[in-house]
């Protein structure tokens, strides 16, 4: 894969890579660093990229693995992510102004999900991948993806309904 091929096929994925990294790593800075690191790795291996039938799925799998490794390293260093120590341009600002805003609540509800469900929600509901593609990226059977996705959607909906009905924040 030469430079122009790389720029045409791999570079346009940078937003998807970044959004998945941010979903997992929470902070914007870390997600940006991860994206840069991942692109450096992809660039170094651009000769091998041709061997993969689905470059996009490969890049997303790499993103997933890299971010999970980062999280694991962080946990073993006893540096847990504190939910208040990140700033998100659009979301936390809204949160300050209007705490009841349920859109930002959705963000928190997704952040509270297990990592696998988080990734599946991200890939399906934000990036609109097919179940087969998500299965390829996460190394899961499509049915397993469906089960986890259903569980995640139900959890989020249940929490949102609770708030909606009782006004609990």
């Amino acid at each position, binding site marked *: 894969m030469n430079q122009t091929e790389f720029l045409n096929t791999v570079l346009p994925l*940078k937003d998807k890579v970044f959004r998945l990294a941010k979903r997992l790593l929470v902070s914007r800075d870390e997600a940006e660093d991860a*994206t840069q690191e991942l692109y450096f790795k992809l660039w170094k291996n651009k000769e091998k990229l041709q061997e993969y039938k689905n470059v996009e799925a490969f890049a997303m799998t790499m993103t997933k693995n890299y971010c999970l490794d980062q999280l694991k390293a962080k946990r073993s260093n006893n540096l847990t992510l504190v939910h208040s120590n990140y700033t998100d341009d659009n979301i936390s600002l809204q949160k300050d102004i209007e705490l009841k805003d349920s*859109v930002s609540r959705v963000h928190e509800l997704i952040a509270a999900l297990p990592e696998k469900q988080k990734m599946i929600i991200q890939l399906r509901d934000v990036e609109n991948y097919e179940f087969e593609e998500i299965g390829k990226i996460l190394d899961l059977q499509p049915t397993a*993806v469906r089960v986890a996705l259903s569980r995640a959607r139900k959890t989020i909906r249940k929490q*949102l309904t609770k*708030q909606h009905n009782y006004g609990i924040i």
Partner: protein
Amino acid sequence: MELSNIENLVEKYENAETSLQEEAVLKNYFSNEDVAPHLMEYKALFAYFNTSKEERFTKTIPLKRKQTNFWWLSIAASVAIMVSVYVVNDTSTSSSITPQELAEAEQALKDTQKAFQLISQNLNKGGNVAMASLGEFEKAQNKVFKIE
């Protein structure tokens, strides 16, 4: 889109049985202003998905780092090592002298020593002559000044 139809899709959505097309229909419905009150919570959910998709990576991606410039350094280093090894080898082989060369060198040494001896003999001679003339000079001086 009829409400019963939407309710149907919502249920399928929760069971993760909707296709991407059906999910697009839901997304479209919930982005409208008039959403049935009992489905309001989904409005926030789909609104959140839409805003999430808008997020962009704004930093630059450095594809070429400084590391890539180091490959020629290793070549330069290996060339330097090869040259130095060659030079060392070259001098060590030339230090092994053939007997003929040794004889020539000894002859040269002898010649040089002879030449030096000749010079020093002449120098000695010259010294004696000078001393003798100094003696003459003293005699002449004494005659003039009559010191004793």
